[in-house]
Structures are given as C-alpha cells and as structure tokens.
C-alpha cells in the first residue's frame, strides 16, 4: 500500500510537470525520451523571465550542460561594481539587466555552483540547453554557448 502511494505521487508529479510544461517540454520528451523535472512551482524568476522555468537537476540535464560547457565562451567580463548573483532568481534578473534579448530563456538550472539558462539567445524556444547563458554564483561574468 505504501509503495502504491509513492508510485501515485510520482505519477502525479510527472503529470503535473507535463501539464504545466508547454511545447518545448514536449519536444524535449520526444527528442530524448526524458522529461526534466520542473521546480518552478517552488522558484519563480522575475520580470520578463517570469515564464522561465527552474528545472530540477538530473543526469540528462547534466549531460547537456557538459556539452554546453565545451562550447562555453565569455560574453560579458567581470563588472565588480555589479551585484553578483547568489541565487538563480538573482542570476535571472542580472541576466535580464545585462543582456539584450528578444525572448526570455525557457528553462534554467543550477549545477555545480553555476546557473545555466537555456534559450534566450534567439527567438526559438530551447529547453535542451542547446544554447543559453551561464553565470557562476557570486560572480558577474556571463558566459554563453
């Protein structure tokens, strides 16, 4: 009975995630047969990034981040006078204040002390970390891939 309850909870979480995610998550599931866990019900970004989803970290995300790291390059140098973001919310706000964008990143995640934002570099939606921004916690440098 206890096992059944846990299973029901998991299914419920998956359904919630599936129901609250839009097309990009469908695309992600189709492409990778894996749906990232969503945590935006707990953390919500501000401003025009209000729709940017904060996802849970799992192995598939880590794998994509590792790929992204290979392509990572600096696009904004350190600005010591700026307030360095310590949270992913601050990072989102910092990103929105210092990057000219036409769309908000679609998803974001914190991994290994770095905030990763997928999308936002084009008008196309991207939840697979094919491109995006990265800001190291406590630093003002913005990287992109």
């Amino acid at each position, binding site marked *: 009975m206890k096992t059944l309850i846990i299973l029901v909870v998991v299914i419920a979480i998956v359904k919630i995630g599936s129901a609250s995610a839009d097309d990009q998550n469908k695309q992600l599931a189709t492409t990778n047969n894996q749906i990232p866990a969503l945590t935006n019900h707990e953390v919500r970004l501000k401003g025009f990034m209000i729709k940017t989803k904060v996802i849970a970290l799992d192995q598939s995300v880590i794998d994509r981040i590792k790929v992204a790291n290979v392509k990572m390059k600096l696009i904004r140098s350190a600005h010591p006078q700026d307030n360095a973001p310590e949270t992913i919310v601050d990072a989102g706000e910092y990103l929105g*204040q210092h990057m*000219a964008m*036409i769309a908000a990143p679609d998803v974001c995640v914190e991994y290994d002390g770095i905030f990763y934002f997928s999308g936002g570099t084009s*008008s196309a939606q991207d939840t697979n970390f094919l491109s995006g921004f990265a800001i190291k916690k406590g630093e003002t440098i913005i990287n992109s891939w």
Partner: protein
Amino acid sequence: MSKKVLNYAGKRPMLLALIMATLTLGLLFSGWLTPTPGRAQQVPPNPQPNVESCTNCISEGSVVFEGETYVPVVCIGNSVTVDSGSFLIYSADVRVITTNSDGSTTTTDYAVQPNYSMTWTASVGSFNASGTGDSATFTPTNGGCGTVIFTCNYTNLTPCGDIGHPTTTSGFSVAQMSTNCTSGTVVLGNSSSATNLWYAANMSVTLSATNNNISNSIVVTTHDPCGINPDTYVTNLVAATIITNWWTVNYGSFSTNGSGLSATFTLTNPGSGTVTFNEEYTQNTPCDTNVYSATPLSIPFNVISVTLTNMGFANGNHQISKDDGSGTYPSPEWQLLTNNMTTNYPTCYTRNTSMTVTPNWIIIPGGFSGPVLVKGISSGPQLPVVSGFPGSVTSTDNFKNKVDFLNPLTIDWQASLDGGTNWHDIATTANQVYVTLNDPTCATLYHTVVWLACVNAVGQTTVGGTADAVFSGFTGLVVKRVSDNIQMTYWMTNSMGDYQMGATETGGILSAADANGNCQAWSALLRDCFRAHGISADRIKALPVAASDQSILVKDWQFNNPPSGSGTYPYNVGTDAFDLPGVPGQGNSNPPGGFNGHWITLCNGSYYDPSYGTSKVSGANKDKDYEDGSLAGYGESLPPSNGTGVRKNDTSAGSASELHYTTDN
C-alpha cells in the same frame, strides 16, 4: 793726330754699326771731318813747282787691343765664335815742310793710318784652330776651358816705318756634359670608376688599372770647365716600354684571368673578391734594359646585394589587433617571405606625430659597411637620407594633423654607393597606416574598429566632426569586417528563420563566424570606433523604467483603435497591435520588434544607435527624443507575442522619458 776706332766686330756687330753710323753723321754735321786749313790731310799736298819740300815722320802709328771679357760657352761639336774685343788704331803723324820760291816755307801735317791685319789661334786641350780676322769661329772637339790668341800685325807707311805685333787673348768654354740614369719604376694605379658595385643578375664587372710614373729619370749635367757659369742639370723622362700585362680575379670559388689592364668578367652572385693586375716592363737607354716587374696591384671589390627582410613601426605607433581575437598583428609589420611574397600588417599612429620605422637588412658581402647612403621615399611622413643601413629611422616631419588613412603607406627604399648620384632600388614596403584624432583609448584596437574609425573620417580634426564622420559609416546599414569582408548583421535569422542574438561585444561580432550581433555588440563596436580616436564614448543601456514594462517595442508597430483591451496595456498583440517590418537594422531589413531593452552609444553629448543607423539624438531632452524616435511602445511581456498586452509610447508634449539610461561598458 790719332783716331780711336772701337772695333766690336764679332761681338756686337749691330750695336757697333749703329754707333758708327751715329758717329759718322755727327762728325759730318759738326764739320769735324771737313778739311780744315792748316790742318794736314791724309793725302800729302802736291809740291809747288820750283819748290823744295821735306817730309818727316813725326810719330809712329800703332794698334792697341783693349781686351775681351765675354767668354762664350758651347758644347762639343757646336760652333763657337770668339771675338778679339775692341782695339785702338793710332795713326802716324807726317809733316811736310815746303820751301816756296820766295823762300817762305809752308808746313803741312797729315795722318797716315798704319796697315794692319789680324790672325788668331785657338786651342782647347788637343784641339787647335787658326785663322784671320778679329773674330774666330771654329768648332771645338775637346771640352775644356780654351783660349783664342789674336795677333795684330801692323806696318806704318813711309816716312814712318814702325811695325808691331800686339796680341790679345780671349777665352771660350767647351762645356762638359754627363748623363746619369735614375731608374724609374712602373706603378700600377687603380683607375676603376668604382669598387663597390650594385649587384644585378649576371652582371658584367669591369675593373681597370693604369700605369703611373712609367718613366725613367735621366739627368743631364752640363759643367762649365772655365768655372764662369754654374753647372746646369736637365732631367729628361724617358718612357719605359711595357712588355706585357695581365690580370687575375678571385671571387669566392670563382676565378678567371685575362690580358691587359682592364678586367671584364661576369658574376652571378653578390660577394667580394679581388682583381690583381701584373705588368712587366723594360727601361730604355741610357738606363739598363733589364725586364722588371711592376708591383702587382690588387683591387678589392664588392658586388653588393641588399635585401630588406622586414620592417617594423615603432615609437608611438598603436598596435592593431586581429579581428579574430588571436592577438595583435606581429611586428615587424612588413616582412619579406619566400617567392617575393610579403606580409603587410597594418599599424596606427596618432595625427601630427612622427613615424619611426625599423628596417632589417641582409647585406652581401656581410662585412660591407659603406660608404653607402640609404633613403626611404615615403608616401607618408618623410624619412631622411642616412649613411649606412639604418636599424631605425625617424621621420623628419609628422603625419598630417588630421584623421587619415594611408592605404597603403609605401616606402621606396633605395641605396646609393656614389654619394647620392645614382640610387638603386632595394624594396618597397606597403602597410596600411591609420591615423587617429588622438591616442586610442579602446581596450583593444581591432582592425575593423580602426578601419571604421578612420576610413570614414579622413580629414577630420575635431571630436564632433570625427564622431559624426565615423557614424556615417554605420548609417548605410552595410558594415563589413576588414578581415573577411563579411557584412556584419543585427539579430539576423538563421536558416530556420529564428532571430539570433549573436555576439554581444566588439570582439565577438568581429570574430563570429556569422558576423551577427545584438545591440550590445553594435553599440560597443561604435563606442570602440570613437575610442579609437581617443574620443570619450560609452555604451548606454536603456531599460524600461516601469517595473511592469517587460519589453520595448521598436518601430514600427501598428496599433488599431479603439484597443480591444483596457488598463496599462490595452492593445492585444495579434488583435489590434501588429509588428510591422519597420526600421531596418544592420544587414537585416526586419529585425525583431520587441526587446527587454536597448543598447546605444553616447558620445560627445549625443546618442548614436548603430544597430539601426538612425540619426543621432542630442540635446537636454535627448532621452525622450530618442525614445520617441525609435520606440513604438511597451509590452507587458517578452516577447510581445500574440495575446499579450502592449501600449503605445506616449509622445505627447511634456511626457516623461520611460527608459532608464545607464552606462554599461
């Protein structure tokens, strides 16, 4: 009565004739020779008939030499004339006493000149000669101090009767000549026009020698045995006879030879060598006739080749960075590669400053150091003529006192081995040289940055003029990179039709494969172009002031009234608000219509928007003016997608600026 006769015959005959003629005429006119009564005539008077007469010699006549002091000097074999000198003839005086018929007597005196004749005998050494007359002419065959004895034989006529044989002695000198030979030498001299020769392929070289002092020294001494005249010396130079001459050339591993004193040969490579000239000669009589060898003459020569291997710019130039971010262009900026290919990197100077270049040379032969003059004929600041191959040359004047772009600055390097008469080309360097208004202040002076900064601002001398001129290069919306001539774009779409943000900094858009960038990149690029001139400029971030404004709507948008919604954002995108093609951007005829904010460039009190190339905005109200000129409205979300609410930009008079402008470099 006696009469003197000066006889200078044989000594000064013309002078004597002149004297005698003068005396004769004088005497005639004076009447001295006119028979005078009571004065005896030379012809005895005829006796009167029946008259007795008696003739008596009162005094005897005579001839007296006065002597000769002049001693002629002749050489053996030459005729000499020796004179007796002057002599005096004294006439005899005769008196005739006639007893007339009446017993009276008449006394008549007259003079009778004695008869005389001259003989002479000459002798010098074993030579003897004789003759008559008071002038002796003969040809002595012996040298020495000789004498001529003149003897006068005179006889007085009856009634006088004395005879005499006075003598006088004159001298003459037969000079003794001797000849000595001081051996001469033949010295070879270098008559080559030049021994430092400029190399040319398969060049023909001619070097030559000449004979100097090719004479014997023969001294002829003339000695006067009588000691009256000093010895005289006459030096005669008698040319030696050249028997043969030849030359040899040694030039590295190359050698050749030939005859004569002019060596012509062909060389195929630069270097140094020596040509040696040799000569044999004989002297001539009275010197010996042995065969002598002139001291060989070795003439070192250089066949010079100069290669300019590289040339850098120094002292005040600003190094330019490559667009691809791999660092600055290396110095030396000009380098000679193989196959006569060159690298020609750009450099940058500030206007009205001098230029220093640092050429490097390969000189063959290696030890050659001149004399040589080197000059670089510059299409920019002028370079001085220098002696030797310089390692550094600073111009004698400055770049023009204005923004400039020398495309390229050429320097024709030339050298002269003859003091500047003839110049030989070495190489021509060519480098792009950008001349900025002031010293660059941008962090990295990218090639495209300085190119954009200068190519459109040539001739500018002011900050404002330069800034506007630089920006004029952006207003056409076609801005290309120097490195690959690719046009840079603004939020260009990819193959899927999706807008791409691209680079966000100057270095990024200059190096990105797609040459695409957002407004941050473009405003940074223009900022750096201004800073390339040392003009103060900043990238400005403009974000909505209102917390609810999540996007700005860039012109053009169409708003249909009345709006379907209400509140702050009454227009609904896709329903009564539509993004029109609107204002084109760099390389993009239809950039996105909405952003979270916009980045522009502030310079000299004006906003410049390089992303769209629109007119600059200036003045105290430039914030609002910029917004009204560029923005159509604001949205409640980003992107302002269908279904989201937007509002129009309030352009009413006195409306406030709705963007917050901050520096964001």
